[in-house]
């Protein structure tokens, strides 16, 4: 399937990546080739095959609901590009 420029723009919007017009052309070409390659899978009969999402046989472990960690405010904020006391700062979201 060819991935045209509109599909690239829509997908980039979903992925929150802004793209230059001139990059979109290249991406459209690359992704069309890649999808042609992965569409080989359509040849495989997968009737009655269960999708594999994890190679581990058992389901994920659970643990007791105990507090094992905490009081890490400073560590959590340490790498923030913009912060103020106890908060991450982001561009204004409420008008």
């Amino acid at each position, binding site marked *: 399937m060819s991935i045209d420029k509109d599909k690239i723009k829509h997908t980039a919007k979903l992925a929150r990546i802004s793209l230059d017009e001139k990059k979109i052309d290249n991406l459209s070409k690359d992704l069309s*080739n890649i999808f042609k390659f992965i569409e*080989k899978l359509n040849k495989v009969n997968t009737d009655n095959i269960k999708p594999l999402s994890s190679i581990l046989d058992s389901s994920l472990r659970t643990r007791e609901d105990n507090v094992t960690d905490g009081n890490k405010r400073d560590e959590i904020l340490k*790498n923030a590009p913009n912060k103020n006391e106890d908060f991450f700062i982001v561009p204004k979201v409420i008008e």
Partner: protein
Amino acid sequence: MTDLTKNSLNENVNLIRQKKIKSEELTLAFVENIKKGKKLNSFITECNDAAIASAKNFDKKPNFDGLLPGIPIAVKDLFCTNAVKTTAASKMLENFVPTYESTVTGNLWSEGAFLLGKLNCDEYAMGSSNETSFFGNVINPIKENTVPGGSSGGSASALAADLTPATIGTDTGGSIRQPASFTGTVGLKPTYGLCSRWGIVAFASSLDQAGPMTKTVSDCALMLEAMVGFDPKDSTSINKKKENYSKNLSQNIKGLKIGIPKEYRVDGMPKEIDDLWEKGKKFLKEEGAEIIDISLPHTEYALPTYYIVAPAEASSNLARYDGVKYGYRSSKGANLIEMYEHTRSEAFGDEVKRRILIGTYVLSSGYYDAYYLKAQKVRQLIKNDFDSAFNNVDAILTPSTPSATFKIGEKKDDPISMYLNDIFTVPTNLAGIPAMSVPAGYDKNNLPLGLQLIGKPLGEQTLLNIAYVIESKSNLKQNISKWWEK
């Protein structure tokens, strides 16, 4: 005086244990090589001073209890290291300094090792030539202007050039084994869940595994033993007793059944690789193993499956890089959404963007069943192929890669020809089973080639033992001229 940096890891561990050398002496020797090795661009962050200080501390009060007493080790820059910058070779994390340590690196330090530096790799481990790094491509010490493979290219380059005595990488589709093969070193991808993923920058969570990269097979056994272990912080960590891979390393492979899958003989593969494969079979037969022809019928679908599953998981994992909590933030954008879009556009490289877009597309409404669900079903068939093969064989022997290393820039503009590098390594990640690459010969241009061994779940010891036979019978003398020091 002998050059300590040319020794195997085991030799240096023994010298330290026997008090014949000090950790400081060893560390200084590697630091010297690192300073002379800048042309290779294998390091993103050097920890020379901190490593020398750690070595002095060790010498003051030596403790020989661990597996790696007083050994400096540089690691792929995908492992979070406490208070040491961890970049994943991306502009996004250029200035990220973790406040915690990954479980696997923490395990190495508990065994007596300490950090020598952080090694270059493909950006977020997405690449097969180490050309996608924000910090520039890495050079293969084997030959000027050739790639070291990827994504653990800095690890392979630093190891082959004697800049670190051993190292660790991560392998999502071949990122340990392909660079090992390209640089004439040993690399092992363990069973999914054997090494904790906690504190490793995530690429594709159902495929990622950390593993050792070393000069010899017995070094590989030692490093693996130091890395593994159950970790409650990784929900997919396997809870089992640690094995003593070093002690149980043996060349006795008598009676083992080795499968040769016909689907791994691909069109256009150089004759030397076919010859090498034959040589490998001969070696194992001579030691009493039985060679059995097998079929893994869905092999040709592994790469297309991988290029749906891995980008899908990557697009989800990389959604966290939003310029808010850590990492790069763009100064552009009038509102929050625009800030996200500019941040991710400015700080992710082309290959990462490409994969995020593939992943977002295959997961998007209307396409999920056709791509993602289909790929998960084919993934099951690929796993079934291995399951039935292992009813009849103990391990599988294949080439590691369809070619030797290639020139920098040669495949950069053609994503598919780059992806084909991983044609022999990807199936094992999809099936979650262990595999390793061991050097076995050279192509006609004298470039190293590796053979791959694939094992049953938790069959690492069998792989190490078979690789030990191949290593000993190939008896290669790696002789790299240190052209980069001139």
